[in-house]
Structure formats: structure tokens, C-alpha cells
């Protein structure tokens, strides 16, 4: 079940081969949905679901897919799954679906997805492909959550909508940093995370 190779497929994307930190994929949505923690978490879960299922589907179909239209096949599978996620969210998590608005739809264009389908699912069996999908999704989600944690804390003084910075701080002149809510600060936050990550993983540093 969990051979060394499968373990690698699952654990590598969490840190050493993280899609956001190392491959710098999926940056667009990382900037857009991380102003608050809740949408970031829902976005993470949605990406994990879409990635795991599409990886398995493509992996099951891998021997039948004609090579010249494989990208189209991948797109159709991903697009269908994304629409399903969007519809389910609208029915069962309406408020969150309003906050995420277009970004759920944009999962289709998330480079991590197409990247994993091309690089892994097309040439591996369903089980490793499933693990790879979950791993990459988690790797993406972890970064989203870290970025959203700092942006919501410093930008709004709340976490998941609950006030965490006590009122007396505001009474003594503390102010929420409005800049944290804007997309550029997400980029800088991601930059800081990459910096910390590289300094702890020397082998990733470019010479």
C-alpha cells in the first residue's frame, strides 16, 4: 500500500517538492483567496478534492487516451470536477461560495492540476496517482493556510472571523494593517515563507 515510492508521491509535495514553494505554481489563487482564513481552507479542500479525483480518473483512462488530444481530455475531466465542486458549494456552503466567487472556477487553470496530470497521472497507476493528488493538494493548502493566517491576523485582527487581537490593543493605538489585505502582501508573505523554507532545506538553494 505504502511502498517507498508511494510515500514519496505523498510526502514530497508537502515540503521538498511543494507546488507553491518550490515549483512556484498556483500563485494566482494563492494571492487571491488568502485575505481570510475560511475561504483559504475551503479553496484548499476544493483543490485537494479536484486534484485527487482527476488524478485517479486520468490514471484509469491513461491507456485509452489518444496522445494527441490528451490535454483536451484532461481539461474536460478537470472542468467537470470543478463545476461539480462549484455546484455543491453553492448548495451546501453558500456564504463561502460567494466569497470564493470566480476562484473556484479558476481551479481549472491552476497549473498544479494540469502539471500533476501530465507529469504523474498519465504514467502511473490509480493508487499512487491518488496519493500524489492528495499530497500536492495538501502542499498547496498548507501554504494557503499559512499565508491566510498571517494576512487575516495582521490585516483584520481576526482568525476565522473571530476577534483575536483584544480591544485594549486598539485602545492603545494598535491598528490593523490594511496593506496585508491587498494581494501584493500575499506575494511578499509567500516570499518570506520561501525564504524560510530554502534556508532550512539547503539542497533547494540555487547556486
Amino acid at each position: 500500500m505504502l511502498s517507498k515510492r508511494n510515500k514519496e508521491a505523498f510526502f514530497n509535495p508537502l515540503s521538498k517538492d511543494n507546488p507553491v514553494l518550490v515549483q512556484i505554481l498556483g500563485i494566482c489563487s494563492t494571492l487571491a483567496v488568502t485575505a481570510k482564513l475560511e475561504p483559504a481552507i475551503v479553496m484548499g479542500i476544493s483543490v485537494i478534492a479536484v486534484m485527487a479525483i482527476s488524478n485517479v480518473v486520468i490514471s484509469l483512462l491513461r491507456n485509452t487516451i489518444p496522445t494527441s488530444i490528451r490535454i483536451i481530455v484532461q481539461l474536460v475531466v478537470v472542468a467537470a470536477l470543478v463545476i461539480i465542486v462549484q455546484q455543491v458549494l453553492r448548495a451546501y456552503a453558500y456564504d463561502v461560495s460567494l466569497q470564493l466567487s470566480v476562484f473556484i472556477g479558476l481551479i481549472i487553470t491552476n497549473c498544479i492540476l494540469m502539471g500533476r496530470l501530465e507529469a504523474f497521472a498519465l504514467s502511473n497507476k490509480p493508487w499512487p496517482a491518488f496519493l500524489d493528488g492528495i499530497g500536492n493538494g495538501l502542499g498547496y493548502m498548507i501554504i494557503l493556510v499559512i499565508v491566510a493566517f498571517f494576512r487575516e491576523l495582521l490585516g483584520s485582527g481576526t482568525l476565522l472571523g473571530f476577534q483575536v487581537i483584544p480591544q485594549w490593543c486598539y485602545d492603545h493605538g494598535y491598528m490593523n494593517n490594511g496593506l496585508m489585505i491587498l494581494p501584493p502582501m500575499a506575494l511578499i508573505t509567500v516570499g518570506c515563507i520561501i525564504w524560510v523554507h530554502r534556508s532550512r532545506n539547503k539542497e533547494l538553494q540555487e547556486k
Partner: protein
Amino acid sequence: MNKNSNIYQILYAAVMVLIVGTVLAFIYMALKPKQDDNVANDKRKQILSAVHMTPASDDVIEETFNKYIIAGYLLNKDGSVADSAQNVAFEIDMKNNIKLKERDLPLFKCKLDDGSIKYIVPVYGAGLWGPIWGYVAVNDNGTDIYGAYFSHEGETPGLGAEIANPNFQEQFKGKNIYPDGEFKSISVMKAGQKPTDGSEYVNAISGGTITSRGVQAMLSECMMPYDAFFKKLQSETNLICGTDLECETK
């Protein structure tokens, strides 16, 4: 079979699209009623927000709405009731309605726990990135605003999106839209500035100038057509009587 033959590819694509299409259509149909409920409940919640009311939980939104919003009307330009059928005001989609040359004038009548009557007017306009909308509740004297609720599709978080912040909306309470007997919409002004036409004003959002202007324009454009109705409210008798509704006199 040759995987790269044209026939195989075309068949493959056709079958795939057929299957995916069927699955999506099925899911859409299955979830549609639930989604429509969500949209309607969201609208109910927004309308209730205009009179400072929040349903205790998501399960009682419809109940609360039906309890307090006692009637909905479509008005004529002269302020008389054109239609008072149930749900007729609720079903108006402002997005399409606002584009009509002769637009409908939906109005909600709300009766609070203390017996006071408020009239709620839906408003719809443009922000910086997309549409903004809201509901404005007016006291039954036809001059003061009782409460306002605004929302938006995609204004900048922390800047334009602050129009959805209760602190911004709170400012509208008690503002007079007939400061000197004539309709003058509420202005949204930068701190330190005052409107030149003598209208009452609230503070704009710093950094959200275009959205703030959008709110001002939206209020002015969407409330102006109700001028005749507000004037009727101000005159001695309250003229809003439907066929099956009690006529109320002040």
C-alpha cells in the same frame, strides 16, 4: 485498435463529452432546488438587515422574514400601488429591472415588534469592479432613513468592500432625505467635505472613493422614483392600501 487514428480520437472525444455532459446535467438538476433556496434566503437576510434584524439561525430565515415583512408591492410612478400580489416585490430581480426604461418599483412593508412600520426600497448600482446593491428602510413618516444594508460582488477587500461593514451602514440611520421638503438623496462625502446642495451626508470610505461615489449615485438614482410615494407618506393619510390590506392612517 489504433489509438491515434482519427476515428478513435473523434469517437473518444464525443463519448467523453456525452458522459461528462450527462453527469453535469444530472448534478445541476439535483442541486438546483437547494441552490435556489440559498439565493432566496440570502436575499431575505439582506432585506432584514436593512431593518437591523438578523435571523437567529439559518433555519428560521424564511419564518423571520414572513413574520416581519408583512407585504410587498410594486408601485406606480405616482406612488400608488400597481400590484400587491404575494411575492411580487420579492421576485423582482433588480439587476434586470434597473435596465428597464419604465422600471418596476418594488417596495417591502415591514412591521417591527414595537408596531412601527418601515418601508424598504431595494437599490442597485455600480461599484468599482462590479455591481453593488442594497436595501434602504425608510420610516413611515417618509423622510428619515431607518436603516441601510449594502453588499457588493467584488469590491476591493478593506477598501470598497467596507460598504458592507455595519459601521458604514450605521451612519445612514436617522438621515433625512427631505431636508427642506424636496427629495435630496444622502451624499457620501470625504471627511471634512460637505455637500453643496444641502443634502444630508455620511462619511465615505477612505481608499474606496469610486465605490463610495457608486453608493451615492445608486441611492440617488434608485430612490428618486419613489419621490411620489414618500410624499404621500408625508401627507396626512397613508395611502398605501391594497385590496386585501388594512388601510392605515397616521
